[in-house]
């Protein structure tokens, strides 16, 4: 079918066509090598600079910086043009990253508090952010005021979330020793449908007992059970052990008082209390330490937690603490 256009055109043998092909491919081959080389050099430069810049900047500081420099939620929200929920998620993830660090300074917590405010302004229905954020601020940052502010903000926006008054009640109970307020909040939680049954029990007991170690332990058991995050659970578990210490110390304080009454002096060691039959046994220190008694002052303490958890005895229970 093919007809050659002219005599000159058809004279080219197959070999020249082959040669020409190799000629073309060698040209493009060289160009390709050059471009590929340029790409490789530039890629190496980009990666090198990326790493160099990473090293120059403390990443953690950078992340904290990014939280600190977050614009206010009210400003950020319109700027995200409908993507504020995603924004809330991303900031929340950054908060979690920062918390995962080894050392978090007090100043860091100030920025965290701001970031939590931004997250909950972007997404006011983000109950977990209020709840976990409230716990972080109270337990890790030791800023119950910030924690309460966040939780109260959450309660306004989410009146149907029983966790928020529940955690607020916890703050008043443990940190502020305000049992009336704690009871009020627990009562609020007990009115919200969907709450677990123990909320009602706790609320009732709070009104009656105030802060007893047993109630505290029960409260904490619930918190441990409810905590989804292992970090949060660890916080509560520590707290639980601290309350155990407080309970043990309370029990032994009573024994010590009886010892002094009977013997007219302090015991030399804690073992004396057992040997001479004032207590059945010395309880195990939950952190793996031991309980000691100071023979001079008659003060009893834990080897791991010198500071005593301030425990309130409900009226009627005799106390040597207050």
């Amino acid at each position, binding site marked *: *079918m*093919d*007809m*050659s*256009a*002219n*005599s*000159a*055109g*058809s004279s*080219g043998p197959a070999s*020249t*066509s082959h040669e*020409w*092909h190799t*000629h*073309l491919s060698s040209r493009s081959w060289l160009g390709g090598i050059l471009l590929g080389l340029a790409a490789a050099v530039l890629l190496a430069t980009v990666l090198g600079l990326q790493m160099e810049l990473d090293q120059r900047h403390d990443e953690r500081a950078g992340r904290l910086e990014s939280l600190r420099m977050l614009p206010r939620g009210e400003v950020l929200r319109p700027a995200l043009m409908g993507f504020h929920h995603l924004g809330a998620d991303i900031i929340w993830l950054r908060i979690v990253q920062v918390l995962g660090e080894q050392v978090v300074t007090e100043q860091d917590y100030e920025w965290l508090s701001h970031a939590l405010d931004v997250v909950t302004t972007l997404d006011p229905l983000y109950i977990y952010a209020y709840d976990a954020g409230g716990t972080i601020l109270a337990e890790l940052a030791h800023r119950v005021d910030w924690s309460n502010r966040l939780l109260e903000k959450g309660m306004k926006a989410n009146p149907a979330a029983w966790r928020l008054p529940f955690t607020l009640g916890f703050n008043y109970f443990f940190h502020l020793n305000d049992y009336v307020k704690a009871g009020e909040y627990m009562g609020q939680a007990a009115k919200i449908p969907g709450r677990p049954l123990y909320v009602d029990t706790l609320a009732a007991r709070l009104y009656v007992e105030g802060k007893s170690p047993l109630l505290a332990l029960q409260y904490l058991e619930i918190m441990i059970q409810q905590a989804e995050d292992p970090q949060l659970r660890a916080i509560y578990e520590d707290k639980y052990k601290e309350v155990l210490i407080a309970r043990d110390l309370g029990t032994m304080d009573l024994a010590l008082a009886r010892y002094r009454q009977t013997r007219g002096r302090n015991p030399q060691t804690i073992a004396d209390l057992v040997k001479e039959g004032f207590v059945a046994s010395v309880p195990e220190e939950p952190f793996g330490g031991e309980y000691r008694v100071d023979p001079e002052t008659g003060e009893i303490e834990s080897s791991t937690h010198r500071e005593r958890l301030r425990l309130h005895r409900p009226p009627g229970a005799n106390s040597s603490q207050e």
Partner: protein
Amino acid sequence: MSTTETILQTEGLTKTFKVGFWGRHVTVLEGLNLGVQRGEVFGFLGPNGAGKTTTIKILMGLIYPTGGRATVFGRPVGDSRAKARVGFLPESPYFYDYLTAAEFLQFYGHLFSLRGAALEKQVTELLDMVGMSHAKNMQLRKFSKGMLQRVGIAQALINDPELVVLDEPMSGLDPVGRKEIRDLILRLKERGKTVFFSSHILHDAELLCDRVAIILKGRMVACGRVSELVGEGATRSVEMVVEGLSSEGLEHLRPLAEKLLIQGNQVLVVLSNQQQVGNALEIVRIAKGSVVSVTPQKGSLEELFIREVKGTQSSSREGQ
């Protein structure tokens, strides 16, 4: 033919495209051999989808061939030194419509490193040549299709090329516009340019081309001088119109005619070959009739084209 120089050549040019999601291979060009000589107007003909534009894009370095070779001025296609001597107008382009005609040509001039007064002069001359001087400072968005095509050709000529390649320069134009483009092509030929253009309109090619190539489904089916191609195997019939013929004369004419059509006073006689014209005229003279016209029916590219299309169809049917 011996003194001519082949400035554009393809040998066994083949192109397959991958189409669709599955990358099915479709052969658009298969073993195309072409040669265009200096100074000629070469028509590259074929129906739509035959592979004309693909060939031209390969020649312009816009598409890479799958096989075969193509050279322009003896250099592989895509070579800048060859490109510098070529002018090209693609099929129905939509030019930068925010530019004026002058700005448009200046821009292309810059691509050939033309500047200053020389460029200014070239732009003025070209606009004059394509008859667009009046629209020099008009934005291209206000141009008609024909005007765009003319500045398009001016754009192809900005570097004073030796070879001008035009892809379907006449398509989409009205008869006046087509005539203008044809005149332009002839003027280019007068100036010693080689013109290679594609078209699916055979009439244009017949009027313009020294030589044509016809491709169908990516294969070349005919190539040569128009007169040679249409002469080959075409039946030379003659149409004669006669007036006032007696019925006796009519009876004498009937055996000579291939076809005879009586319309009132006039008779249309179709003679199968030229040899019979003399006899027929003699009969008319004797019968005292008068001859209105004698028209030899030349074969046309159209006929050739249709014949070839039918040929490929039947051969492909046989193949199946």
